């Protein structure tokens, strides 16, 4: 049995998540990744914004910071730059990270600041009652898209890669074992890492869209996910409406904190001459 207890704030349970919610699966994957990384609890800052996923920090025994909607990465930027030895992890949702927080997300990726961002993508605003988000697929319903969503959806991982993230991977709550493997790789990566975790929201996404219960959603993830190695070989038509999973991007780029330290050392040396 994995020692989850070691990381949990037991007196904060029961959690607020609905029955069948994927947030708990992502949380457990995150804890397994942290345990494997051997990073001490004191050296981890877990930062979130607002939403279902952003309630994660309250349940775990780290330095935890629950911020304002969309701003988690901006708060995390200050934490990391002011205390570079902290391992900064951001947990956020599709609305938090790519709608209200979209600007912070792309600019942190561009800077390649060393942090790990886990995005719980459930295609919907769960906390506020099922409104359409930037990742709600076209045609699907939300409480603010009662006739079906007419907006195209963001591909969160593609956005992260385009903006400059060093490491980008995607998995689903059905593929939980891969999820903690990717989060672990993200924790070890020097630079901006993004792990997109596809999570079921049976309450606010499955119900209005008649997608069945959480077991049906898990089956859907199983049947409709294709490993990135295969996705690269098949036609666009064959992977339409499928979820590509795996390590989508892993590159070496100069990391912001290191670049800043180099600059600071150079300036301080010049001044002393």
């Amino acid at each position, binding site marked *: 049995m994995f020692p989850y207890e070691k990381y949990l704030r037991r007196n904060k349970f029961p959690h607020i998540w609905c029955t069948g919610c994927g947030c708990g699966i992502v949380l457990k994957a995150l804890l397994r990744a942290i345990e494997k990384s051997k990073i001490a609890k004191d050296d981890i800052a877990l930062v979130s914004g607002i939403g279902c996923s952003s309630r994660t920090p*309250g349940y775990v025994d780290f330095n935890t910071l629950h*911020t304002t909607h969309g701003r988690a990465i*901006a708060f995390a*930027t*200050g934490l990391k*730059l*002011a*205390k570079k030895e902290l391992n900064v992890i951001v947990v956020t949702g599709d609305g938090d990270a790519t709608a209200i927080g979209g*600007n912070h997300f792309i600019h942190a990726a561009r800077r390649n600041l060393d942090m790990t961002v886990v995005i719980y993508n459930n295609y919907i605003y769960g906390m506020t009652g099922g409104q359409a988000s930037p990742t709600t697929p076209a045609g699907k319903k939300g409480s603010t898209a009662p006739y079906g969503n007419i907006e195209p959806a963001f591909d969160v991982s593609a956005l992260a890669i385009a903006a400059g993230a060093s490491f980008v991977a995607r998995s689903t709550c059905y593929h939980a074992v891969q999820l903690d493997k990717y989060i672990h790789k993200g924790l070890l990566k020097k630079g901006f890492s993004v792990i997109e975790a596809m999570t079921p929201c049976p309450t606010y996404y499955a119900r209005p869209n008649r997608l069945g219960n959480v077991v049906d959603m898990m089956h859907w993830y199983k049947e409709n996910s294709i490993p990135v190695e295969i996705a690269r070989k098949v036609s666009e038509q064959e992977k339409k409406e499928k979820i590509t999973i795996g390590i989508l991007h892993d590159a070496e780029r100069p990391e912001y904190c290191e670049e800043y330290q180099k600059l600071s050392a150079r300036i301080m040396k010049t*001044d002393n001459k």
Partner: protein
Amino acid sequence: MREDDARLMTGNEACAEAALVAGMRFFAGYPITPSSEIAECLARRLPQEGGTFIQMEDELASMAAIIGASLTGVKSMTATSGPGFSLMQENIGYASMAEVPCVIVNVQRGGPSTGLPTLPSQSDVMQARWGTHGDHPVIVVAPSTVRETYDWTIKAFNFAERFRVPVVVLLDEIVAHVNEKIIVPTRGEFEVIDRDRTTQDPKDYLPYALTDSDIPPFADFGSGYRYNVTGLSHDETGFPANDPKKVDLLHRRLNRKIERYRNEIVHYKTELLEDADIVVVAYGSTARSAYRAVRNARALGLKVGIFKMFVLWPFPYQELDKLARRVEKFIVPEMNLGQIAHEVTCAAKHEVAQVNRIDGGLITPDEILEAIKNVSV
């Protein structure tokens, strides 16, 4: 203080240099006229001092980043002007709620909206007090000269650290851009305060403990005290709470911690009030014109004095109320449509005369003198 320490400086430069002297080592900001020189100066100076400068993607992020940095125990600051100050309001509220010390410099320009980017204004007085939603404590200082900007930037950090609140330094375009001779004070001439840090065992630490002082001792993030910080109403443990008793306790304490120490914070200077039957209440760059107007009026034999404010919030209601018992006529010159005049009216309990400009022009001594002559007849 020695004459050979004299330097020529703008208010923006004085603000940046004083912040460094106060121990500020983290700045996050976004370019905006007329405050940009503060960021430019610190982009050059902070790496020299081993501190961190970062230009963020917007003002929302700048405010968020300084709160994040301050949570690790590093004194942090941002600088902006009206439109950017509007964007910062969201996280200024967070800093109030989570009791994170930080300093926000707002170099006021004409508003609303994009307004008059290069011209002075004092129209953010109420935004500085009430800009973020909810009842919240705030401290706002408003210097008039380059030297005052230096001194009050240091004091702003001291207030932020002492009371665990966001503090606003409200400059205006004139104070920010005027080049003046200042004699830079030496280290022994001012006090630098650091936040009170807990010495408790991490097991027993309550981040929002109810203490006699109403100001909970701080623990730096990542120093072995693993606690939770949230913008939600919370209890002593730092975890969300919506029990009415706990919510009431939190919000009354947050506001009380400024009210009960108001005498340490409120600061003003009076001149020529002994025999005065008219008083000019002034602040910021407008106070400079007010001093000249008062001197000119005295030369004409008019009995007028001045009440010059350094701190706008908390507002000196009691002091002005006391003054109003012996002086009947008040004049408030300001580059807005009466934001402070309204508060003076509340304190004095009768109408006050106003001199207002909102056209981007500064208020001249003659305009104030004219108002003094008008009320004296």
